[in-house]
């Protein structure tokens, strides 16, 4: 069973503490989102798990092996994507990925097939023999994601994997990550995008000012720290009597609050998931008040995130 463990992991630059005594053990086959504001220590942590930086104190263990003393063994079955790597400009994706496949020990007979498959996975087949120097940032990011998938790693360490991608690319990468879940893999990914984490991850670890705030399953974190509220915004084509409308909506089950934003826009808070959200939409349409838009304004995870981060300020 793949695992990563931070034991008193600390990184200090002079008097600035980037990461302070992080103790975190994650094991099993699941996807864990690593959340935190800018400068909270997310990338620092991932860099210490990939030998890009050294800990000032403590240990970064992968499958029980210390990354800094036995790097080759520790990273033998790990796919990584840290920041936005550059690839030697004059190499083609085929050459660059073959190099990584060779380094990771993919047998010669399988190498070509694996490289072509991971390139197909990130939808870059037509660029496989073109030089990387001409690629956009998003295209390079796709090749780097392909590189992380080589040799079917049991652990994936991804640092904001959708950075630099267009909306379609972001959606495709999320689909790739979802498809990788449940295949005897542990995925540990940092992200700023709470929707992405909600969509993809089973558990979340929240870090701020170099300290771990919480690590738990997504439902536990949201139920403990968000107050269980989701919020949707409703847009109307014409103004209505706000007092009657808000009182009506508040009387529905699972709705915790309804308030006017302006004459044509209302905010509804509710407890529950997509089923409740759908039921509220059906009810509000039945009121025949000219609903023209209905969209989530914030999520339980966002609520939890903001409460936890605010608490540490």
């Amino acid at each position, binding site marked *: 069973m793949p695992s990563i463990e931070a034991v008193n992991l600390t990184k200090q630059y002079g008097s600035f503490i980037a990461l302070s005594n992080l103790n975190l053990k994650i094991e099993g086959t699941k996807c864990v989102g690593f959340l935190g504001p800018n400068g909270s220590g997310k990338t*620092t942590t991932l*860099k210490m798990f*990939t*030998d*890009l*930086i*050294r800990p000032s104190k403590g240990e970064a263990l992968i499958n029980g092996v210390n990354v800094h003393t036995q*790097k*080759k*063994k*520790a*990273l*033998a*079955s*790990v796919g*990584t994507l*840290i*920041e*936005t*790597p*550059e*690839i*030697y*400009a*004059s*190499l083609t994706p085929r*050459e*660059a990925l073959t*190099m*990584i496949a*060779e*380094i*990771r*020990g*993919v*047998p010669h007979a*399988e190498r070509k097939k*694996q490289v072509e*498959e*991971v390139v197909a*996975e990130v939808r870059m087949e037509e660029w496989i023999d073109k*030089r990387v120097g001409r690629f956009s940032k998003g295209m390079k990011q796709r090749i*780097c994601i392909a*590189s992380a*998938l080589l*040799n*079917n*790693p*049991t652990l994936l*360490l991804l640092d904001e994997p959708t950075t630099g991608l267009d909306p379609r690319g972001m959606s495709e990468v999320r689909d*790739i990550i979802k*498809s*990788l879940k449940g*295949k005897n893999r542990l995925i540990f990914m940092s992200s700023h995008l709470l929707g992405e984490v909600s969509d993809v991850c089973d558990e979340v670890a929240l870090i701020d000012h170099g300290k771990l705030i919480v690590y738990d399953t997504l439902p536990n974190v949201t139920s403990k720290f968000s107050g269980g509220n989701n919020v949707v915004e409703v847009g109307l084509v014409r103004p209505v009597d706000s007092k009657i409308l808000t009182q009506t909506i508040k009387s529905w089950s699972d709705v915790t609050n309804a308030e006017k934003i302006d004459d044509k826009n209302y905010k509804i808070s509710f407890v529950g998931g997509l089923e409740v959200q759908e039921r509220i939409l059906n009810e509000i349409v039945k009121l025949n008040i000219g609903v023209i838009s209905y969209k989530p304004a914030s999520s339980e995870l966002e609520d939890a995130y903001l409460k936890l981060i605010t608490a540490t300020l």
Partner: protein
Amino acid sequence: MTQKNFESKNTVPGSIAQAGIITKNTLLDYIRSRRFYILLSITVLIGLLLTIVAYYRPQFFPSSELGFYSTWWGISVSFVVVLSAIFFGGDAISGEFQNKTGYFGVPNPIRRSSIYVGKWFAALIASTVMIVVFTVIAVGNGLYFVSGVPYQFGESLLFSWIYLVAVLSFTFFFSSLFKSSSISILVSAILLLVVFSLVNEIIVRFVQIEPWFLINYGAQIIGSVLASPYPPHQTSVSAPGFRGETVQINTFNASIPEGLAIMGIYFAVTAIIGLILFERKEFN
């Protein structure tokens, strides 16, 4: 995803094999790069200019085989060696930080030392290509103008290559010291092309001690081996000073073992320190 069929229980290659993988791919990158062709053009241009000079045979160009090679090759090959080392070694490691290519290679099951050694060998092979091209032009000149190639030329060629090995190690060291490609290239170039020659000159002329601690002093054996007889280790001549007094002027020539030792020490010390620096350097 169809790649799920592959098992990830494959054995990671040994560190030497991985260094070989890095060498192969870095060399491919070098050979396709603009800098390779720029340096090749400079090398050929130097060769062509020397060919023109040899054709007109000015008085300082000796007509003996050894003298011809001493003048044609002995003066210029060090410059080609230093340029090659700066072009291929000047930013070999710092570029991994500045261009972020290190983020692609380092977070893999590979020791940093394998990356360092692999890149060093790639730079050595690319630089050796330049030396080979320059050698071909030199030998072509020798065959045309003096109809022969003395065995001492072989020794000089070997010493040039050893100098290349030492200078590449030196440039890799500076490349490990800085995270900026331009700074590491600039510092290497200034030291190798200007500072060492200047310090050599100042020490010999004014301090009058043997500059055994300078790599370019050790590299003198490249030209000295083409002299017949081999220049004495130290010569002293008396010359009138500014105020009419007699002053002693010493000149020093590194012996072959001394030159080899200087280059060997430069290679070993800068290779070890450069490697340690790269091992400890952080991608932040």
